[in-house]
């Protein structure tokens, strides 16, 4: 892997860029950097957002001014560079294995047959394959609590729908490209729906509000 690159994301954020791939090792590096940043507790940092291959750092420029003419971004980038260099890989989050119960197919998974046809498998084989793999949460985004999961078996990879649905029901378990995930609430969406879970993935009144967080291990269980 190349050393991470730090790019300005406008004048109030920076992006630490680890690569351009959906891969476990790149994601582990991004999560390690995010943890190092949280531990460092730098001034004026409002948000630290790990993604597949990057970490976004939102900051208040006023917290990064000094005596010389160096810009807030340049000053912050020096600190971030040093942190990135020393970031230690984080151990997997010790939250055990989160099991997500899923009702596959039928009205809950209207695209299960399409996924089976695309994979050249019986629909039972798709359910077995999806449910037998162990996944790891790579990142949260798109909508509050939406977890992008790494570890979808190759046979189930499938390009997104040509036309996204305007309404995907909350709890829908879906496949998009090499990824699988669960829609926490009703939103538009372009992934293939294979089932649905009754679990509430995101509840603003709960602490923590999101059921899943980056680094957690996840398994789907047919119900």
């Amino acid at each position, binding site marked *: 892997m190349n050393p991470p690159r730090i790019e300005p994301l406008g004048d109030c954020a920076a*992006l630490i860029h680890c690569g351009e791939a959906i891969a476990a090792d790149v994601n582990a590096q991004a999560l390690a950097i995010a943890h190092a940043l949280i531990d460092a507790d730098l001034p004026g940092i409002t948000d630290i957002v*790990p993604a597949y291959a990057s970490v976004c750092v*939102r900051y208040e420029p006023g917290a990064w001014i000094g005596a010389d003419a160096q810009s807030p971004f340049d000053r912050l980038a020096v600190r971030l560079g040093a942190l990135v260099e020393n970031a230690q890989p984080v151990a997997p989050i010790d939250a055990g294995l989160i099991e997500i119960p899923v009702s596959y197919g039928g009205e809950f998974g209207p695209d299960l047959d399409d996924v089976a046809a695309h994979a050249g498998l019986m629909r039972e084989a798709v359910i077995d394959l999806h449910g037998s793999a162990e996944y790891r949460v790579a990142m949260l*985004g798109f909508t509050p609590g939406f977890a992008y999961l790494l570890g979808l078996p190759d046979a189930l990879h499938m390009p997104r729908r040509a036309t996204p649905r305007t309404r995907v029901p909350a709890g829908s378990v879906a496949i998009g490209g090499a990824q699988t995930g669960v829609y926490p609430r009703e939103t538009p969406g372009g992934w293939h729906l294979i089932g649905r879970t009754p679990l509430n993935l995101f509840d603003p009144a709960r602490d923590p509000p999101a059921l899943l967080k980056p680094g957690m291990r996840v398994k789907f269980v047919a119900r």
Partner: protein
Amino acid sequence: MSITVLAPGWQTSVQDGGRRGLAALGVGASGAMDDVSRRLANILVGNMDNAAVLEITLRGPRLRFDADCVVAMTGAALDGLPMWRPVAVRAGTEIAFGTMQRGAYAYLAVAGGIGSETVLGSRSTDIVAGFNAALVAGDVLPIMESSHIQHRDLWRRFHARTATGNFENPNVVATLWSLNPRSWFDLDPHNPIGVIEGAHFAQLSDDAQRALFDSTFRVGGDSSRMGLRLHNAHLGLRELLELVSAGVVPGTVQLPPSGDPIVLMAESPTCGGYPRIGHVIGVDLPRLAQRRPGDSVRFVRAALDEAQTRYLEREHALAALARTIKDRLQ
């Protein structure tokens, strides 16, 4: 103390300084589209910078003030109350706000701040995420006690000057002085908006690189608090870019396959997978927010150093203004 919503207008919502620290969970900041106008409204009634106000979009609501209160309106001009100054309103007064002729957002701050329900540490409405919702008729907004301003004193000190504008209302009095919005607020769609080149600017075709800064874009009717969609010049890439989702922020200019750029705004998602061709600079984001569908937008190239210098100058000036007005309200 409360305000009752009699009619909501086109889209009126409660907005404070936004949600912080939760972007890693996919929770965006939300907050006001024109956050400088929101902060100025708070300054004019002696509120904390972060206090919740009403964000009014294009056509104003009809409100009943159920208690004596001190309010301030900022942002795009609309009939209803004198703007850019503290205004005392008597209990029971009903105000029907008009329609904006120019600009898109106005802000109504109430001394004490709006005390509606907090979700994840903020009162900001996030329409896309479903945290609270735009106001509907019948909503009752609690108003918190102001530590700073006593309505009775103001009524006396404002010398009972009745409201100016297209109406005379004996239940509304305003200060003789007002804030000159010129240095804070700009509705002229011909003034260019500063943009810093994004990570994927170099991947735009030569024509598209020129077009980003030479074209006059038009704000699309499909724009929202999530983003402004800009039409008129289709921008093309040298070759298809396959990107993995990465963090984005308000101001990020994304290029979806349609070729029409999207500038992410207050309800920006936390991550996105489209090429990042530019970033609107922080000081110009509130000005861009005031462009309404059909308005034109021109971009001018900005350097990061200069953008950060101007950002710091603005924060400095806002802090100085807040101190001056606080003294005046004492």
